[in-house]
């Protein structure tokens, strides 16, 4: 029950942040990505605020032995730069530039019922499942041919 409460509180804060920051508006996000246009640097301030609070907060929280509703912290441990990280980030960036939506703002906009948001989220979920299903193929991607290893 605690974990569900934790998820809900964090999700509410996140959704409020997306609305107040203006990221819920794809046109504003494109205004940031469009360096050659009428550039709007606002998104840099969203990232600055988010990174600053998270960096300070994580330092404090991770000093505790464990989180409140779980036995341990679940933190990414990988440090390698593999092809699927670069390919995935590249494909994501192209989709972000085409639609002005990354996953959070698209979900946050769902309640306003625009067809553009609804089809984007539906397609995004299909893309996620597709990536999961093809995971075996892509997780096998390496920089060198296997025989050379």
């Amino acid at each position, binding site marked *: 029950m605690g974990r569900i409460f934790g998820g809900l509180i964090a999700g509410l804060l996140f959704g409020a942040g997306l609305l107040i920051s203006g990221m819920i508006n794809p046109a504003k996000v494109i205004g940031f*990505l469009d360096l050659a246009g009428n550039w709007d640097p606002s998104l840099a301030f969203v990232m600055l605020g988010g990174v600053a609070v998270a960096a300070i907060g994580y330092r404090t929280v991770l000093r505790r032995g464990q989180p409140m509703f779980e036995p341990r912290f679940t933190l990414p441990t990988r440090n390698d730069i593999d092809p699927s990280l670069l390919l995935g980030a590249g494909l994501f960036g192209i989709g972000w530039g085409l639609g002005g939506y990354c996953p959070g703002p698209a979900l946050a906009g769902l309640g306003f019922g625009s067809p553009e948001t609804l089809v984007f989220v539906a397609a995004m979920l299909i893309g996620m499942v597709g990536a999961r299903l093809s995971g075996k193929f892509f997780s096998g991607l390496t920089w060198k041919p296997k025989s050379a290893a």
Partner: protein
Amino acid sequence: MDNFTPLASLFGGALIGLSAVVLMLLNGRIAGISGITAGMLSPSGATPDRGWRTAFVAGIIIAPLALVLVTGTRPDIGFVAPVTVMILAGLLVGFGTVLGNGCTSGHGVCGIARLSTRSIIATAVFMAAGVATTFIVRHVMVGG
């Protein structure tokens, strides 16, 4: 820079950072939207923690609606692409974020806050790809 909103964006960003800290404090998890959402879709056997993931996504959807109801002002939501392009954009964002293990939140906020090398590089790549795509769509393809 007509639409520049530094204070609102800084405050909204701080709320997103606070969300990340709260999720770490309570559930010990990174607040990565693509990872949380993709995990929600996994077969139930593979994901025993579907409950909190669903609650997180519900919170993201509910909060903007609740704020709009309370304040009585609808947010500006403007689209730059037709529905057909949004389908392609959604497929790329969904596929790419799962393949690359994260999006703007997981890599761009949480990962950079942890000084993760993977996240810093992923953020540079998706930012560059987003800028390049926007340039091509808005300045090359329309000839403007």
